[in-house]
């Protein structure tokens, strides 16, 4: 049994351009792309411009397309209205631990599946595939009960935001695929040099798998940073809550002062947008290779 992969390896690279691609209608093509681009970019434009308007201007009808005055102090105001430093710290902490933890668990498990022989391998792999297919919705309510006071008693902790996400079948599959592509000769050479599995993993496998590891790390970090439903139901203490839940609460606090909400939304999305601009290649490769869709 194998995980379907619609997107063979070769396709992950930047697509080869058609040398002979039809050139007709270039203007029309640009028109389509620009129109779509404008529609896609508009909400971001709206967020940034609205975040700089005065309350008076933000609530004027008809709305203005350009702010007449730039009120950068909105950011300071929005920042001061809630405990944002705490929310950022919470989220960076949870996302950081999640990412590191998921990397460790999936590297080890992927290595075992890719390069070791053991009893029950096929059965365990099938079990992993089953958990991969199981949607988060299936486990939402039971997990909600499991972490309740009656069982694990983890409400309102960091642990409850971290533990359930410390391993995913998806990362294990992705890394297993990568580890299997490493030539056996490398392993044989390492064994002759007296290396055991852990040494081979550490000094040969991991260094040549950096792109795949970065992909797993970025996707894991994104998932943590953007997670909302789970922390919404298992936390209520503002000191422990992550940034997306805080932003949702801030919608009510800001009320009709939506220029402040837009300022808050801007600084909430800033870190991941920056990460995207820096790590675009890895993220796009990860999506193309695995087909996950948030």
């Amino acid at each position: 049994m194998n995980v379907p992969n619609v997107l063979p390896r070769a396709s992950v690279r930047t697509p080869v351009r058609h040398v002979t691609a039809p050139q007709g209608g270039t203007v029309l093509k640009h028109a389509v792309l620009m129109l779509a681009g404008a529609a896609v970019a508009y909400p971001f434009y709206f967020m940034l411009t609205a975040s700089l308007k005065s309350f008076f201007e933000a609530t004027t009808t008809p709305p203005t397309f350009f702010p007449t005055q730039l009120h950068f102090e909105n950011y300071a105001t929005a920042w001061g209205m809630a405990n944002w430093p705490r929310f950022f710290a919470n989220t960076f902490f949870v996302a950081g631990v999640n990412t590191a933890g998921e990397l460790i668990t999936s590297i080890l498990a992927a290595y075992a599946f890719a390069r070791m022989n053991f009893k029950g391998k096929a059965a365990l792999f099938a079990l992993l595939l089953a958990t991969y297919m199981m949607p988060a919705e299936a486990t939402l309510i039971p997990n909600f009960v499991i972490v309740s006071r009656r069982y694990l008693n983890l409400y309102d902790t960091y642990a409850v935001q971290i533990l359930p996400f410390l391993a995913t079948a998806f990362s294990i599959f992705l890394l297993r695929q990568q580890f299997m592509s490493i030539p056996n000769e490398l392993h044989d050479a390492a064994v002759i040099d007296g290396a055991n599995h852990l040494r081979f993993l550490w000094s040969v496998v991991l260094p040549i798998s950096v792109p795949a590891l970065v992909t797993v790390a970025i996707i894991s970090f994104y998932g943590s940073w953007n997670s909302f439903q789970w922390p919404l139901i298992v936390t209520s203490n503002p000191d422990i809550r992550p940034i997306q839940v805080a932003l949702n609460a801030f919608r009510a606090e800001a009320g009709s002062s939506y220029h402040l909400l837009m300022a808050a939304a801007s600084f909430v999305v800033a870190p991941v947008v920056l990460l995207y601009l820096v790590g675009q290649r890895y993220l796009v490769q990860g999506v193309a290779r695995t087909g996950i869709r948030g």
Partner: protein
Amino acid sequence: MSVGAIRTSQRAASRRRRVISENVQAYLFLLPAFAVLAVFKIWPAFFAIYISTFKWDIIQGAFRGIGNYTDILFGSRAEAFWRSLSTTFTYAAITIPFEIAIGLVIAYILFQKIRGRAIYRTVYYLPYVTSTVAAAAVFEWVFHPQYGLVNEMLGSIGVGPFRFLQEPDGVFEMVGAHFGIQVPGLLAGPSLALATVAIFSIWHFLGFQIVVFLAGLGNIPEQYYEAAKLDGATQWQLFRKITLPLLSPQIFFVFTIASIGVLRAFNEIYVLTNGGPLDTTRTVTMNVFRTFFQQGQIGLGSAMGVLLTVIILAFTLIQFQVLERRVTYG
């Protein structure tokens, strides 16, 4: 001879030791991942079914057997459940075709030699990496009846204003009313609120579709195009006869992934409409959430969750089946 026998048995013993040691090591490698998966993924899947057979309002109550399920499918909860299921499929029907069509057109153009490709791509992927909560908070105001720019733009061409996310009336119903035709309730169409959520969804996932389609386009051998062009094929024919058929695995893939995505959608609906107005955006996931979290009926909610899981699993299995076959000669 005896020396040889000793050597053989020594070799066998050392091999056995190696095998045991390899097994032990492998299990130690698997332990952390499987411990987490066992507690939060495998066990809960069974626990969900257990919970769903009880009256479980905040705390565990009496055993009900399939009572929760019959309530949901035929009993006191049936109306809300079937309505939410119909809303979910309506949401899918007005989202997925557009996601595929728009993604396909843009990917097709982007794939050709075109200036500024990198910039276009960066822009198109941007919504996909933005959190749903933040993006939805922005959309709420872009589509605000009074201060939003969408109404302003539509107003300049003499349409609207609309209440968008607060509008429970059906889209076709509103178009009909505009022309003085009364559209019967059955054909009222999705509420404008649901259509606006769909627009959000299309916007948010555009980048994903483009990535998948671009990867698929990269797999189509160039010779096909060259040969067809030697035969004098037009650009439309190239697209229709080569690109589209050879891209069908990706189209199917996007279709199933998007279906599963719609079935699971929560964050955007929660932030944009919270199931309203008049419950017209109350999908199955919203219904589950309301039941188990807001009303505290964990047993009932869990039964709904199990039903939802069965539907999602059906889509997943179809996807696996079809794609596995595709890949073998892909």
